[in-house]
């Protein structure tokens, strides 16, 4: 589960949540309705050409702007396996962890990757390999508390566990 392999789509710095999913589509929270508009105002072709398992690369401050969880939901629903960026805006970061969208903060991987490169990602170890460049990078490690949320599949699973509704956060 933790070993991913996908083709890269590179986006720049300060990709905001209006670019990820424009507010004109927020009259629904159905992921299948959001997915066709994912990244529409940054790259109108993206949602039509992205393949399941592909990887989004962002620059600095990826996901800045609004608190809309529809942004990571749309990215997840369109089939993107992982987002790697130099840095993330805090609400997007938090939302991604909470809904179980894999994200990694890895400046070197983000700066070096070019659209079309193929990466492998070991989520558990935070190791990113660019197969086109034959380079390997180490991403920032999540604090133990966040690893527990990730292990539970997101915040809802974690809360169910802490409220005694589930036996194990891995279940």
């Amino acid at each position, binding site marked *: 589960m933790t070993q991913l392999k996908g083709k890269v789509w590179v986006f720049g710095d300060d990709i905001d949540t209006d*670019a990820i999913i*424009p507010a004109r589509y927020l*009259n629904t929270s159905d992921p299948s309705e959001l997915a066709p508009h994912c990244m529409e105002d940054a790259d109108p072709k993206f949602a039509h050409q992205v393949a399941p398992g592909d990887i989004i690369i962002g620059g600095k401050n990826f996901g800045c702007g*609004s608190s809309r969880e529809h942004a990571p*939901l749309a990215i997840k629903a369109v089939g993107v396996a992982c987002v790697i960026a130099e*840095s993330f805006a805090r609400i997007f970061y*938090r939302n991604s962890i909470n809904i179980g969208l894999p994200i990694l903060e890895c400046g070197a991987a983000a700066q070096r990757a070019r659209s079309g490169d193929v990466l492998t990602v070991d989520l558990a170890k935070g190791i990113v390999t660019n197969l086109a460049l034959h380079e390997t990078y180490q991403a920032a490690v999540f604090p133990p508390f966040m690893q527990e949320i990730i292990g539970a599949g997101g915040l809802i699973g974690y809360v169910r566990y802490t409220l005694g509704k589930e036996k194990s956060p891995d279940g």
Partner: protein
Amino acid sequence: MGMTITEKILAAHAGKEQLTPGELISIPVDLVLGNDVTAPLAIQEFERIGVPTVFDPEKIALVPDHFTPNKDIKSAEQVKVMREFAKKHKITHYFEIGRMGIEHCLLPELGLVVPGDVVIGADSHTCTYGAVGAFATGVGSTDLAAAMATGEAWFRVPETIRFVYYGKMRPWVTGKDLILYTIGLIGVEGARYAAMEFTGEAISDLSQDSRFTMANMAIEAGAKNGIFIPDAITKEYVQGRAQRSYQFYDSDPDATYKEVIEIDVSQIEPQVAFPHLPENSRGISQVGDIPIDQVVIGSCTNGRMEDLRVAADILTGRQVAPGVRLVILPGTQGLYKQAISEGLVEIFIDAGAAVSTPTCGPCLGGHMGVLAKGERALATTNRNFVGRMGHPESEVYLSSPAVAAASAVMGRIVGPCQVVGKGCQG
């Protein structure tokens, strides 16, 4: 060891004497907030948790304000989900159309957020409440769902950047100009994950409405929260409104800051942020000739009485330029009514403005003023991202209500001095 106001509020809620930046804490929240975009998703996730009731029906605020009055069938369905959830769980603070306002104007006005609070809202501009000395931050729908079930939220204690504003403000300069200037100075990720603490002699004279505007836009610098040390101005605002007891916190003189940034406000002109980031701000004298199609005055950033009054001051006896659309949105029903009783709405309508019931509408390109391809707007809102107010090839510039009103009259972006000519240097 000294603590900042942000650290003190979080420590008090964590039941600890001392907190330091970087610590992870799970603490009780005083109020949680959702709107018609974020609450329906939170309600869906809340159901997945499997608890029969919300943690406290009096500590949840549900405000349908983004696409309301419902702009289409899907929006109506979203609000219906909120309404039915509020009814089922006997949520005290659900605000129906006709009683609602823009959430971040409404909750302080009603005294539902008070100094010393910890508030989370599934809306990024929840940081607005730092203007009354509360710790308030935006989260997503799943965080809202978890908090509605447990009454708690987890935080990483932020480092604090202290901003010290000194000097005398120029005519027509407001909190909006200070915050646009500040974001221009530090950039849209200049305060990422940090608390922005707004202090200094220029702040001690700053109106409560201008403080709301500044705290509101802390998120546009990437901050977790923006906060003011409560004082006599805060007290005057909250007393008589507060629905709960409140506590004023202050930063210790020996508190530790990530950085201290001093800003001479006497050097700050009215500001305009160019597309497509709030950090692209420049003084009005550096704007050049920029014709506009639409002006919007309102939003959680600038939809309060000070904003409406300054707009009316400039629009009195003047007309919106031919070919320009001016949309004015008072932030709450209370503000709308006050604007009517003060004669402001009559001034707006005489000038040729459209005045509407409270809604976030145009700020996020939802309704009530969506832009066509190639159109350009000047707005008192908070974001000028690509496509923010409509077509991806439209443009949004950001300014204060004074600049917005003056520009509506001239049909291009100008400072108030060019229209009013009083108390101006240039």
